[in-house]
């Protein structure tokens, strides 16, 4: 008797669970056929870092090689050497390497960057055969334009300097004029 009851109970629970499964038969698939299709990724998704193009430096990044990101990185995966181009107040990076194999995507380097020139790439499925595949040269895409940008920056520097000069001159003149008027 107990056994029959048991079986009846089991059958009922089985039918109940099957009902749930049947209900979901008509559901749309929730998976995508990677790599043919790709699920959308979050706009904030963190991947390897990169240098982003900035307004102040058209065609290039605006890194000033201040090494703050290198210093804060908990995994020591950034290494930068800077140089000072002729006639420029700011430094520029000569090399900017990321060892992505060590990166924990913590985002601390983005936080500290004073020029906000760091961002994330959108590549989330990079694979490689050797560790060397994960050494990213972040300056690669900008090497060609470096000369131009330095020139642009020099130009901007000169302009700023000239503006400052002019302003100081104007102020001095105004002062002199005031003094003259007072007399």
């Amino acid at each position, binding site marked *: 008797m107990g056994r029959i009851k*048991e079986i009846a*109970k*089991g059958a009922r*629970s*089985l039918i*109940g*669970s099957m*009902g*749930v*499964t049947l*209900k*979901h038969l008509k559901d749309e698939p*929730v998976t995508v056929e990677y790599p043919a299709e790709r699920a959308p*990724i*979050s*706009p*904030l*998704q*963190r991947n390897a870092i990169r240098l982003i193009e900035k307004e102040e430096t058209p065609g290039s990044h605006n890194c000033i090689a201040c090494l703050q990101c290198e210093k*804060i*990185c*908990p995994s020591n995966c950034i290494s930068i050497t800077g140089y000072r181009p002729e006639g420029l107040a700011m430094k520029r990076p000569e090399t900017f390497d990321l060892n992505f194999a060590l990166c*924990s*995507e*913590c*985002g*601390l380097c983005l*936080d500290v960057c004073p020029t906000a020139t760091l961002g*994330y790439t959108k590549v989330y499925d990079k694979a490689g055969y050797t560790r060397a595949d994960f050494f990213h040269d972040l300056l690669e895409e900008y090497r060609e334009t470096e000369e131009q940008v330095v020139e642009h920056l020099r130009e901007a520097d000169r302009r700023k300097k000239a503006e400052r000069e002019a302003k100081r001159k104007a102020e001095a003149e105004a002062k002199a004029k005031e003094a003259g008027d007072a007399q």
Partner: protein
Amino acid sequence: MAELIQIASDEDRDTFYLNMGPQHPSTHGVLRLRLHLKGERILSAEPIIGYSHRAHEKMAENRNYIQFLPNPSRVDYLSGMIYSIGYCQAIEKAIGLEVPERAEYIRVICNELNRISSHLLWFGTFLLDLGGVTPFLYCFDDREKILDLLDLVSGSRLTYCYGRFGGLVNDVTDDFLEGTARFCTAFRERLREYDRLVTQNVIFRNRTIGVGVMRPELAQQFGITGPCLRAMGMARDVRRDEPYGIYDRFEFDIPTRTASDCFDRYLVRIAEMEQSMRIVEQALAKLPDGPIMAKKIPRKIAPAKGEYYFAVESARGHFGMFIVSDGSEIPYRIHLRTPSFANLSTMRTVLPGTLLADTVSILGSIDIVLPEIDR
């Protein structure tokens, strides 16, 4: 090691040792159980841990407080958000930093979503251990939605580094808020389905009811916390007992059960997901506008010389951080008191006398995450 390996004498020829793990699918990570068996019955059990020890505590002593930010979420990768935000809160308390309201609310939303996702993963894999494949797929579908939501705000899917001292990295978007609200509505329905699918299932009930009972005195002896403790009938939850952040502003129940078997631990977790959802909905309704970062954040994060202890309720129980500062920017010592470590150590007393097949359900039911135990 010598005393471990006893050559069987003549009368216990029918007993034998069995190594379960470290690469066993149902040990949830790299746990090795050394079981001494007589037939199918366990005579003694010794969990052997340490296979995924990554020296997080040593790492803490080699970097400053800010650089330790990515670590806590790697300690317990299933409730990474709770750990990472908990660490921020610990340091904020130590240096006396106020966090803007909006950030506090977002933290609560993310924490609770993370708790649900952790419980969902546990639920799926627990059922998988017991032989039920279907619920696993549903759980991962739901969990995926939460991961997408958290990805939307934090940029990571599992090991979050979303908190910062004094606030958060990014503000939430409307997408996130709408998505969360939508998820809550849909998930209520899903929970009812899970109930039909699993709770009423006879096989599941037979394999869990009365299995793996933790005697009540074990709670004090071993310092059991989290859902395992609540399944013993003790309504203890760090969120209620010593509210951190703004948890004192929310209405939620602490689900408890009394039998303390695998089935009750299961029910407690299911009920907890519902309570987490309640908290999320309240937080969504009250979410104020404003900044997400405190205005004045000291450039140097260096708590005054002294010792600090701060606890949060992770998905598995009481996660405590014991921070010793010598006044510098580098922690003198950070000790992480992780819940599963204590919970797993009870296995030496709980397992003997049970059947080998039940080991799987008992181990599964305490919800261990090995990296969190090994640190």
